[in-house]
């Protein structure tokens, strides 16, 4: 079905190098290699930012600074990793933007629908490649990345700005990071323990047919050409 693959190579993995939204055997390619690399760049730089930033935020996490050789090392490298985080986030934004436009029926995802979803009570056959919650997260983290960049730039050069502006920068940087961290805890949880089969879309790039049918039914139909069940 896919391009000729080298011996011992998995056809789905080979296909996932440059294509997505295609069926290969029993698997569907969900994220091509570029998407996965960008997402991992965001994930790794984000975690590095947490590990270097949280000990500066509060001494409750000062043990993290030892991973880097002390607080002063964190203070020097955090802004640079932050820049890398913003650049990867910007790449991710443009990589996924076209799939992230809200549809009229996704309005409730900021409130009740999100809780329904977390109780496993939502049963929406019209969920496409991304559900409303994922779109909310996408826009929220994009906005947050911008907020962290702007406030972070001020904090990098504190003597170039008025003191009152600096005070706002510190509060905004911390508030944004706290919201971001809380959201990412659930993002990671949903992508691993809560929804088995999801993590593969970030490693091999693929998901199973059944996974796609359960979580993203309309996307499943679009990829496979199957008719709706009812």
């Amino acid at each position: 079905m896919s391009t000729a693959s080298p011996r011992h190579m998995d056809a789905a993995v080979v296909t996932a190098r440059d294509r997505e939204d295609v069926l290969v055997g029993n698997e569907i390619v969900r994220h091509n290699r570029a998407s996965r690399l960008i997402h991992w760049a965001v994930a790794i730089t984000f975690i590095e930012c947490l590990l270097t930033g949280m000990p500066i935020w509060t001494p409750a996490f000062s043990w993290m600074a030892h991973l880097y050789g002390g607080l002063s090392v964190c203070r020097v490298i955090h802004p640079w990793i932050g820049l890398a985080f913003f650049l990867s986030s910007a790449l991710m934004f443009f990589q996924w933007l076209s799939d992230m436009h809200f549809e009229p029926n996704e309005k409730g995802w900021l409130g009740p629908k999100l809780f329904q979803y977390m109780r496993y009570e939502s049963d929406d056959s019209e969920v496409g490649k991304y559900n409303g919650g994922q779109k909310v997260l996408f826009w929220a983290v994009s906005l947050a990345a911008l907020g962290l960049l702007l406030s972070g730039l001020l904090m990098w050069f504190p003597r170039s700005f008025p003191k009152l502006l600096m005070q706002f920068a510190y509060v905004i940087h911390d508030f944004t990071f706290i919201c971001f961290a809380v959201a990412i805890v659930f993002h990671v949880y949903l992508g691993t323990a809560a929804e088995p089969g999801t993590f593969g879309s970030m490693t091999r790039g693929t998901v199973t047919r059944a996974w796609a049918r359960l979580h993203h039914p309309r996307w499943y139909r679009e990829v496979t050409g199957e008719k709706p069940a009812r």
Partner: protein
Amino acid sequence: MSAQNLEIRRSSASVWGSLSGMRSVPVVSKYIDTTTCIGCKACEAACIEWNDLRRVATEQIGSYQTLPTLHAEYWNLIRFNERDFDGGLVWLMRKDQCMHCDEPGCLAACPAPGAIVQYSNGIVDVNPDQCIGCGYCETGCPFDVPRFHQTTGKMAKCTLCVDRVSVGLEPACIKACPTGCLQFGTKEDMLVLAHRRVDQLQANGFKTAALYDPQGVGGTGVVTVLAHGDHPDWYGLPADPHVPLLVKFWKSVLRPLGVVAIFGAVIGAFAHYTKFGPKKVKGASDSDTNLPDA
């Protein structure tokens, strides 16, 4: 410059200092009488000498003032202020340096454990070993005192000569003052001195003479006598200094809430898993629910 023989009352980014509760150390203070300062700058020279500071190129700003503002290598600066007053000119000289607040905004803002300490005698000091040069303290200081040192990458300011004071000497600036407008001792004694001088000034016609010991920061380790006490701004002093509200909110409200929120999220995710478990793919009999074995 850390004074090993002084206990620490407060320490930045720390829950507590090192007070044993066994030693009773009086709070010390400088006394600055701006009305008898003659602007000789002996205190500036003494500060540079004792603290081994490098010479900073002076900057002409149209007055006798050495520099426009404090500098990482210039911790003590006489400000020469001029004002039109009562049909004439008043020439107001004030010695500017760290005020050694009882409630230091720099210490509240500092993220590095032990980088800013307040000793049991009230002296607020930067500990370069721990300082990471982030500049948060600049934002917290209501008097615009801490300065970033370009060479060392650390913050620097007046130490109130803690190395001298802790062995029973007076600060270098005090020792050098030829008019006696600078005195040093316990805060209690300096307040007595200041009140006596204010009374004297008022009796001599300076009706608005007052003592500057702002209570918004819990009082300062510098007691200043002002002839025009109703206009501290004429001397370059804020009328009612406080630790900035946003700094307090940032450190005392947002930070603990954030720690609770993040741990809460982790606990919440675990709780969710125990209540709801993994979201299983329905119809497990379908062959395609199993991971492909290539």
